[in-house]
């Protein structure tokens, strides 16, 4: 009886395992800063390139800000996702994690949480920089909510696909190819909702993309939770 009970970890111990994995990632990242600095510098470069590619004058800025921001986040996101899983694979840490007596889903949620934190930190820095460079006010509670929801969906699918991509021969190029076509709904809904909040549109027009974002987050977290076992299985 005791053996079967210990086999099924309680909610509290699952939570502890998730936080332990996230804590490990954040501690490692805090020391090396390799993922975070790559994502940040890359984001700033993308914004700079957009400036010349789109000729961001005042009139265009109003209409393309949401799109430019989300393309930047998506690109920087794949960089971080790939790196955070590749580090585990290269140093054999993934095997160690898999041997640990925790539920596999704890590994998944732990990685999602740390990837989400990386993405959010980058976003928190990119937003004021963008606001400063292009003189638009991006401090908007609605926009921040959309960014949070969009990042959750993006990292939920991204973590699952990154753990597949790093096990393939073509791993460096594979993640964006796998991720972008299935992340299209998140990007469309997020851009639509961000645009709505930035233009201070009526909430009834923002309601649809916002609920789509929440729906996507729920569906894909559930699916990834169910199939993650098959992805890391040896």
């Amino acid at each position, binding site marked *: 009886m005791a053996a079967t009970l210990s086999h099924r970890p309680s909610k509290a111990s699952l939570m502890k395992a998730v936080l332990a994995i996230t804590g490990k990632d954040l501690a490692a990242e805090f020391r090396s800063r390799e993922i975070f600095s790559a994502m940040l510098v890359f984001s700033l470069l993308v914004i700079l390139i957009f400036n010349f590619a789109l000729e961001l004058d005042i009139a265009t800025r109003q209409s393309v800000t949401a799109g430019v921001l989300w393309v930047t986040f998506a690109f920087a996101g794949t960089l971080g996702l790939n790196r955070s899983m590749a580090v585990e694979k290269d140093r054999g840490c993934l095997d160690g994690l898999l041997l640990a007596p925790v539920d596999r889903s704890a590994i998944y949620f732990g990685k999602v949480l740390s990837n989400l934190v990386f993405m959010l930190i980058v976003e928190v820095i990119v937003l004021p920089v963008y606001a400063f460079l292009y003189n638009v006010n991006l401090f908007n509670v609605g926009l921040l909510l959309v960014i949070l929801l969009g990042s959750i969906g993006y990292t939920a699918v991204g973590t699952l696909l990154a753990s597949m991509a790093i096990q393939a021969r073509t791993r460096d190029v594979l993640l964006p190819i796998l991720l972008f*076509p299935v992340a299209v709904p998140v990007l469309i809904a997020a851009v639509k909702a961000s645009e709505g909040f930035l233009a201070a549109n009526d909430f009834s027009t923002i309601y649809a993309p916002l609920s789509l974002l929440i729906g996507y987050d729920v569906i894909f977290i559930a699916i990834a939770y169910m199939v993650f076992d098959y992805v890391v299985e040896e």
Partner: protein
Amino acid sequence: MRSKPLTLKILDIASLLALAVATYLALIYAPEEATMGQVQRVFYFHIGTAWTGLLGFVFAAGLGVVYLIKQDLKWDIAEVAAVEISAVFFFITILLGSIWARPIWNTWWTWDPRLTTAAITELIYAAYFMLREGIEDPDRRARFGAVYTLVGGLSAPITFFSIRLFRTIHPVVIGSGDPGATGAFAMTSGMLLAFFFALFTFTLIFVDLFWNRVRMGQLAAKVEQLKINLMH
């Protein structure tokens, strides 16, 4: 492996005959549409291929789930077959749609929900094959393939709804029509016959190709096994 089963041979011939009849019905038998003219005849095969393409994709996601539960490689062979055939059918759908759209919408392509979803679905298929390409271990390849068809199969309809947030001009021929759609029409009985026969034909062709492709996959697996046996 036995030689090709008789039922499959009959099915091969039946699908060829059905394709000939469907072509006759679509190009000659069905009446000419009043406003769009001859180009409307593309519609019969457009819907036929779209139907099998989408059905095949859903079917593949289902086979993926079965594989994940049973962990038997025969389900993986079936899944690859379904994805491969629907990828080709779906590509034909897009090509035929473009041919129709050029005179009716005055453009080869527009970012309408259906068109965009179709394009993204083709990209998901492409990503699926690239993922499989990069993995040598057959069990892992099968697992990843199954997971990806499942994720792709779920995201494709959500993509469709997310683009619905924008306006559409794609006509809805079956069911209620959108007043904003350009190129909608009502079907007469002759058109309905050609339409349903095309649906039947492409379903038949799908089944036939699927069976052949599964057989080919099994033979390939057998060859692989013989090669390994030889090396040891």
